[in-house]
């Protein structure tokens, strides 16, 4: 006998969040199952360790549970909303960890979390490229310098000034790389996806 499907499974994200805002735990469970993999992957990419990613993921979804009423569908999809929460929580976690006396040690680990761009020949880079092959690879639209600046910004939460100091580059150079990189990605996506 086939068990009847939970009707919530067919409900759109925005409607699910409306139910979550009314403290409907079943709706939340469906929403979690729908987005947990993307959320966890993003958290792991940012914080670089499974236990920390677990914490970030749990913290972010609790925030979803408790503030679903704040979601405004006019401002974007529910998926982008939850992933933005995950990203922000993960960056907060990184900042708590890295902006302490452990910062210098952690900076070394950045090279492992965000390996050198393609062409620099590390094993981590090869693994990363294999993993990225399954994704939209939007970052592969960028040259190595642009990619590094945007990764440090988006996945590590560094400001342009911090990136300039870290890479020992003039601030103007960092700004230019970031803006050119964003433009390239925007144009690639507008043209139908990465080439």
């Amino acid at each position, binding site marked *: 006998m086939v068990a009847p499907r939970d009707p919530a499974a067919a409900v759109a994200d925005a409607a699910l969040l409306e139910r979550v805002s009314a403290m409907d735990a079943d709706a939340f469970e469906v929403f979690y199952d729908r987005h947990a993999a993307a959320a966890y992957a993003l958290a792991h990419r940012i914080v670089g360790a499974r236990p920390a990613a677990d914490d970030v993921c749990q913290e972010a979804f609790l925030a979803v549970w408790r503030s679903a009423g704040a979601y405004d569908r006019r401002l974007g999809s529910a998926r982008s909303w939850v992933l933005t929460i995950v990203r922000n929580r993960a960056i907060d976690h990184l900042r708590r960890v890295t902006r302490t006396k452990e910062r210098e040690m952690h900076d070394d680990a950045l090279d492992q979390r965000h390996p050198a761009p393609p062409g620099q020949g590390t094993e981590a880079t090869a693994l990363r490229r294999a993993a990225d092959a399954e994704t939209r690879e939007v970052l592969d639209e960028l040259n190595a310098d642009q990619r590094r600046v945007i990764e440090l910004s988006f996945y590590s939460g560094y*400001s342009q000034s911090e990136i300039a100091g870290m890479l020992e580059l003039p601030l103007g150079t960092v700004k230019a790389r970031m803006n050119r990189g964003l433009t390239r990605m925007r144009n690639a996506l507008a043209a139908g996806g990465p080439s």
Partner: protein
Amino acid sequence: MSCREPQLAELLGPFALGACDDDEAARVRAHLPECADCRRRLEELEPVRLALLEDVPPVRPSPAVRATLMAQVREESDLFQAAAAPGAPPSAAPGPTRGRSPRNGRRWLDRARRPRALAVLAAALAALVVAGIAIGGGSGPAPRSIGFAVDRRLAPRGSAQLVVDGGRGRIEVAGLPAPAAGRRYQVWVARGSGRPRPTSALFDVDGRGDGAVDVPGSVADYDQVLVTDEPAEGSRTPTGAVVVRGRA
């Protein structure tokens, strides 16, 4: 029409990436409502931001994350649904000033009627810290005291206990913050997996944060007790933070 503040327009990329410092981000937010050009340019960057959010192969978190999360979510859901279910309003006062319809856990609620304070209550639930363990003996006619959990964020030095004597319970607290003007502490009880019910037990604390109140009914009728911050006349729906919680 182009932006009249090019230095702010230059910040749109970092803003989209979350790479602005607090001051820069505040300036961009203040600028956006008055600049259609920058709003449009920011919208054009949104697909890039979304692509970066998803530029990672999906990986499922461990089952433990789901189990822990859902346990907490269901606990909080039960509390709120219980408070919304039909039940005796506090007898010390006419009851809530906001009328609410009975409903069950699957029913959609009117978002506008969901008080913002519910989120605060839920957050407080998560932060409950067990403050003590049973102090007294467990059987016989002698009174026994059971340590209760106190939300350490709301009452860093607070303590609470349930004193059981002759089959009846009494909540005694110390070091709790005084509720805001027009509000008092209210006791809620629950039994088994049932939903917490409001009681008529309302109380204040003195200058040291000390206070006490008898819990209506027999301790045989409940095995869980909560204390929340509510309107002075009491409420049948939780509207404030759970400050104290424990098992009888």
